[in-house]
């Protein structure tokens, strides 16, 4: 079998001479452009954005400088915002505390401190009260002062029998009034 036979050549010549005709190049053009523009729109085109923002600057190095400066500013802004947000987050987690000085307290005072903390926690929701160490110290001092005055008063009453009788009488009256009520 010789492929170069006459019939084979005739058929091939006929096919070679008859080139397929593309009748609608315009349709293909339109369709291709349509598809390309679709693809282009769906993508973020950086050069177009840069042109839009800095197209008004005609000197090359000035334009490049502006682009660099704006990128730097944006980065600094983002960095700053990050720091601020982080700081706000940290502060919102903290419950107490303004005073930086550390106060050395004896053991019994720490117990008192704990008790006051516990009591304040029972009466109020813990998150609604914020109290500094300074305020706490003041409060404990007042409590001590009050205790001393109470002891002094007891001594005075013990030393004066008439006053003691008068007070006892008053206490009885007060109790009666409470019962009557």
């Amino acid at each position: 079998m010789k492929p170069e036979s006459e019939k084979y050549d005739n058929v091939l010549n006929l096919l070679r001479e008859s080139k397929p005709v593309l009748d609608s190049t315009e349709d293909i053009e339109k369709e291709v452009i349509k598809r390309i523009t679709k693809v282009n729109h769906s993508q973020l085109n950086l050069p177009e954005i840069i042109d839009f923002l800095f197209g008004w600057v005609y000197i090359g190095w000035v334009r490049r400088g502006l682009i660099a400066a704006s990128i730097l500013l944006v980065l600094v802004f983002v960095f700053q915002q990050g720091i601020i947000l982080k700081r706000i987050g940290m502060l919102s987690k903290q419950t107490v505390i303004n005073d930086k000085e550390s106060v050395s307290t004896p053991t019994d005072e720490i117990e008192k401190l704990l008790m006051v903390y516990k009591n304040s926690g029972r009466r109020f929701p813990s998150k609604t009260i914020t109290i500094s160490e300074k305020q706490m110290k003041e409060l404990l001092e007042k409590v001590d002062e009050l205790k001393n005055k109470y002891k002094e008063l007891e001594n005075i009453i013990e030393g004066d029998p008439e006053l003691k009788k008068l007070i006892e009488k008053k206490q009885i009256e007060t109790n009666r009034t409470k019962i009557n009520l």
Partner: protein
Amino acid sequence: MIDIKLIEECRDGNFNNFRKLVELTSPFAYSVAFRMLGNEDQAKDVVQETMVTIWQKLKKIKTSQVYKTWIYRIVVNKCYDEMRKRKRNPEFVADEQTWGVISNMISEGPSIALENSEISKIISILTERLSTKQKAVFVLSDLEGMSNDEISEITGISKSAVKANLYHARKSISEKIEKFL
């Protein structure tokens, strides 16, 4: 030959120049696609797909000589895809009447220009038993007039494989021609 300047201008995103490129490229892309697929609509689809791919990858093209080989490669690969999809469809089988019509066309000689439908019919009948590679090699070599080196570059198969595929394709077609015409 397509001017490299035109390609460079297209790279800058100029749609008008790309229209020109489509206009210049479509006919020979269509010729290969139509001869391989034997279907006008599918060939047009392949041309469209090819042009979109070209637009997306224009940056890779350095010379106009590379451009043509590159386009052929894209077209052939897209045709392979189409042929793979089509494998499930029943093949076109020629009856005696069709062979009679083809015989008449051939007897009239290469002076007559065949219509697309006639070209499609003849190629489909002659190449119906060929593998996709054999068909591609036959179309590129015997119908498009390319050398074995070019075909090897376009299809990505070795030169010896090109020769072997071409031999089998010619043999199969010759047998058909001898048998029916």
